[in-house]
């Protein structure tokens, strides 16, 4: 009995139970990390890429007030004079840049398919950042807006666009004001030959999905649409439309200046460059960090100052991501392939350190309830399936002791998965599947005995408040 009981918490800290680990490396206290690079300790699991001298920061190197003068002093003027604009697509392909919004699709190939379409094109920079635990896009837009806007202009010229949009969360009033100022600054300097419009999207989880953005910019609700046509075929105003995450475009602005070889000088050959990660949860210094692709998840936790208390698991990839037990996650390289192989997902680089003192079933139940509320309400399996899944998880987490819950969860997953127009239901089921895989002992305990003591831990996973969520989709 005791052996299967997760975390018999009597005090503030768990005493025994399955896996209250601190990670395979004995990192429990704050690490003396002062620079932006991780301490390169005697770790055997660290890939070669992180052992080399400082190659980072790249994107975050110019972080300051975000002014144009400062930006140009650091990075030089907008490049590309004397080069055919479409040549940039070759360079981006050679660099091996992949989308930093979550899906990880090759950025150059996406540009090429848009450029090959008929007539004039449109470019959309996606900075709406619907994932509640992500902060990287807001950081870029607030502190390095010119890097993103350089990227928009370069991409627009490369694919042959005659209009471009920068989409942000419509409730970020201060950011919208700031971007107005930034746009005025660039207009005065004559930097953007293709007009760029800033658009504030409704604050809903699925509004930052690319087909939602296209439908919104076309005057409709910010809800996903049924494909085909996909945005690269027919998007904004019927034009072939390139939708890139703002971080992808910021990388593009640096690649255009420094070239493919430079970009490949960081990261892994199979996953080159750097990426921004948002680290939160039980770490000493939560925040946005720039890492080389392929750095291990354990190193990311160290970079954020190490665990603030004993860790049990990492939730990587956000609410479309997956739970990984800490000892599984620690050596996993932060690449799409690396996380997939470990049963996880890189997503937009969200890493949440989960303490041993908190119940992951309760955490997941809260998130799935939120995801159910955030359904666009268009597809039956999502409309009915996600609330049913949330009910079953609530029951397992907080009431428990009902043998039916696990069966119900297992029955609901295939009824929801891949049955919506967008990937919203699939993200929820991936999270739930990973919960069942990562914490089988907890699940059994909850099913037989009811809620564990650690459900009382205050909620850790960030969810937007009602004031940040729009009831309106238009």
């Amino acid at each position, binding site marked *: 009995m005791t052996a299967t009981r997760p975390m018999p918490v009597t005090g503030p800290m768990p005493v025994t139970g399955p896996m209250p680990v601190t990670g395979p490396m004995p990192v429990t206290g704050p690490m003396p990390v002062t620079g932006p690079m991780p301490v390169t300790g005697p770790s055997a699991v660290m890939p070669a890429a992180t052992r080399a001298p400082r190659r980072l920061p790249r994107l975050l190197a110019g972080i300051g007030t975000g002014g144009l003068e400062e930006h140009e002093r650091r990075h030089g003027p907008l490049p590309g004079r004397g080069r055919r604009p479409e040549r940039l697509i070759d360079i981006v392909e050679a660099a091996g840049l992949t989308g930093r919004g979550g899906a990880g699709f090759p950025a150059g190939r996406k540009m090429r398919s848009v450029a090959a379409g008929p007539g004039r094109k449109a470019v959309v920079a996606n900075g709406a950042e619907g994932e509640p635990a992500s902060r990287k896009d807001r950081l870029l837009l607030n502190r390095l807006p010119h890097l993103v806007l350089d990227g928009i202009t370069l991409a627009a010229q490369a694919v042959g666009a005659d209009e471009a949009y920068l989409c942000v969360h419509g409730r970020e009033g201060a950011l919208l004001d700031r971007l107005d100022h930034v746009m005025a600054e660039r207009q005065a300097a004559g930097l953007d030959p293709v007009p760029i419009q800033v658009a504030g999207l409704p604050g809903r989880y699925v509004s930052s999905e690319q087909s939602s953005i296209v439908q919104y910019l076309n005057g409709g609700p910010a809800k996903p*649409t*049924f494909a085909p046509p996909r945005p690269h075929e027919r998007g904004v105003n019927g034009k072939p439309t390139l939708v890139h995450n703002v971080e992808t475009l910021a990388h593009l602005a640096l690649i255009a200046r420094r070239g493919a070889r430079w970009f490949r000088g960081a990261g892994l050959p199979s996953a080159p460059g750097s990426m921004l990660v948002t680290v939160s949860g039980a770490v000493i210094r939560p925040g946005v960090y720039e890492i080389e692709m392929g750095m291990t998840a354990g190193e990311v936790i160290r970079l954020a100052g190490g665990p603030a208390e004993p860790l049990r698991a990492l939730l990587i990839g956000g609410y479309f991501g997956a739970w990984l037990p800490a000892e599984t996650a620690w050596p996993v390289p932060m690449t799409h392939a690396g996380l997939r192989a470990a049963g996880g997902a890189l997503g937009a680089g969200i890493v949440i350190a989960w303490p041993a003192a908190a119940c992951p079933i309760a955490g997941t139940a809260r998130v799935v309830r939120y995801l159910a509320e955030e359904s666009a309400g*268009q*597809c*039956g*399996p*999502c409309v*009915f*399936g996600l609330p049913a899944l949330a009910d079953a998880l609530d029951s397992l987490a907080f009431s428990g002791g009902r043998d039916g819950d696990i069966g119900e969860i297992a029955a609901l997953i295939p*009824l929801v998965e891949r*049955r*919506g*127009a967008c990937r919203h239901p699939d993200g929820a089921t991936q999270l739930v599947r990973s919960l069942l895989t990562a914490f089988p002992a907890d699940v059994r305990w909850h099913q037989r005995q009811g809620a564990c003591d650690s459900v009382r831990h205050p909620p850790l996973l960030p969810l937007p408040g009602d004031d940040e969520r729009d009831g309106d989709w238009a």
Partner: protein
Amino acid sequence: MSVTLHVNPIACVGHGVCAELLPEVVELDRWGYPILVSAAIPRPLLNHARRAVQACPTLALLIEKKAGKHR
């Protein structure tokens, strides 16, 4: 050439006509929305599939012919 059946889940509101007309391929889930047992339609069922597509009140059932060079 192969013929496949698809559901537009946004258009579908769960009338269930497809499951009536094409029970060999379409089952309904607990809420009344169609689950396609297999997307590929066997030749003998082709006419039944076409009838189900035409009968869908919201035009949510789609038939796609895939020739070798399609798309």
